[in-house]
């Protein structure tokens, strides 16, 4: 999802795991179907939805706990996994997030001791531990240096066979590099949605074209 600041990208993204529920007096209209079930159905449990739809935020936000405890958090709160299952899945998630080799010898050291890029990959690993169907990334690289950004982008490409990724980005080039489909939003409205290759070459809407070519935004 691309678009200028304040166009509602993050608000839309936060609809997909009901994070907007946290904002008092929020109203949501319409439906979001996950496996043919509306996640805004009154009977749907937000905690279950959030376990199936992982989220990574703009600023790396590991808990002030150990590396292991961070990744194990989502599993341990569900209270249905044994210790050995948890440590297996923690290892798998860390491998999937390309962090295992860097942290395998210091799983009990504080997550805050990692670098910014590592912290963000830890947050991805933390979200992956729940084995989500969908991963929401809210500008995951905007607080990172170019090298860490490149690594996260590669990681997204590697992960997209395993999990559906919805990513919000300010970086048009990044959207072009890593996405299959792109949505362009402007002033709270979805202007255009198409295959990335299509939209980046022949945008249908003039506003999309103006944004992609850098006339505004």
């Amino acid at each position: 999802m691309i678009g200028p600041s304040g166009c509602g990208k993050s608000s839309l993204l936060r609809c997909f795991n009901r994070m907007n529920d946290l904002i008092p007096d929020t109203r949501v209209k319409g439906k979001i179907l996950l496996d043919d079930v509306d996640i805004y159905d009154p009977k749907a449990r937000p905690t279950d939805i959030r376990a199936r739809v992982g989220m990574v935020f703009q600023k790396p936000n590991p808990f002030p706990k150990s590396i292991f405890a961070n990744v194990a958090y989502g599993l341990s709160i569900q209270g249905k996994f044994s210790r050995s299952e948890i440590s297996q899945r923690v290892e798998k998630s860390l491998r999937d997030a390309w962090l295992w080799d860097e942290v395998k010898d210091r799983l009990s050291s504080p997550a805050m001791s990692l670098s910014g890029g590592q912290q963000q990959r830890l947050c991805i690993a933390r979200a992956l531990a729940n084995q989500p169907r969908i991963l929401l990334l809210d500008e995951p690289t905007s607080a990172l240096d170019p090298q860490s950004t490149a690594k996260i982008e590669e990681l997204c490409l590697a992960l997209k066979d395993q999990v559906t990724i919805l990513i919000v980005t300010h970086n048009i080039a990044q959207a072009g590099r890593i996405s299959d489909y792109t949505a362009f939003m402007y002033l709270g409205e979805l202007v255009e949605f198409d295959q990335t290759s299509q939209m980046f070459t022949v945008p249908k809407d003039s506003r999309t074209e103006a944004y992609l070519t850098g006339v505004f935004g």
Partner: protein
Amino acid sequence: MTRRELKNKAGQGLLALMLLITAALLLIFLFSIFKRGLGVISWEFVTQPPRNGMTAGGIFPAIVGTFWLTLLSILIALPLGILCAVYLHSYGRPRWFMRAVKVAIDTLAGIPSIIYGLFGMALFVNMLGMDVSMLAGSLTLAVLALPLIINASEEAMRGVPKDFIEASIALGATQRQTILRVILPTALPNILTGAIISIGRVAGETAPIMFTAATFYSRRLPRSVTDEVMALPYHIFALMTEGSKGAQQVPSPTEALWCCFCWCWEFHRRQSSSAIGSGGPDNGKDSYLRTEAQPLVWRQPRITRYRSLSL
């Protein structure tokens, strides 16, 4: 030297002078106490009960009494205060009701401690029939410590970055799990700082225990919570008001010992709060510890504001 530089220097000089005056007052105060009191402090003084109409012996029962009073009152006030703060912080609704509760808490914090004493006497001693006892005194002190602990805890929880809370919710945690596993552990160092400050406050109060727990003289140590006890601040007060020549019979040794306690406590507080506050290596990059450690420093004036209102 230009005008601006001169002004800068003059301002700095003024600040240094103020600091000097404050420090001098404190040093004179401590010196006068220690000059007369230090010579009397001995092993016997801290381990023996008073003898010969309080003119000899020691203050052991008062030390023990103050210890128990403080411990009991904090054991009552800390869980109550933290739980109140959790509700205020995380569940507080409806909003007008929470505002009313907060006004009540702040008012409670501003009430002079003698009023607590009278209230404790009316409620615990007379109405609930506890008599003058350690329990009544501890409950009164707990009421006094509650607003301090609630305010400190709530502020500590408000200091927990929203990022952590969102991260926890986004992983499928319930509000209860988020509070127990993320908010409280993160806020704990600051909550404990608040608790330690209120321990200092509670231990030093005279007025609330005057009518509820303290006794002038007791040879034996308290055996249960229904016993009345000797307590250090009341002991000093009582010795001062007992005779006819107040100015000449200042209980300096007890005061000196009390100052030593305060020092030890303050030293310990600094040690422990810096130890908990900065646990774990801090690489400085987006680390919450660096930014969040600040409130420890600036929160204190808010609490000392209440302290200045005590008798």
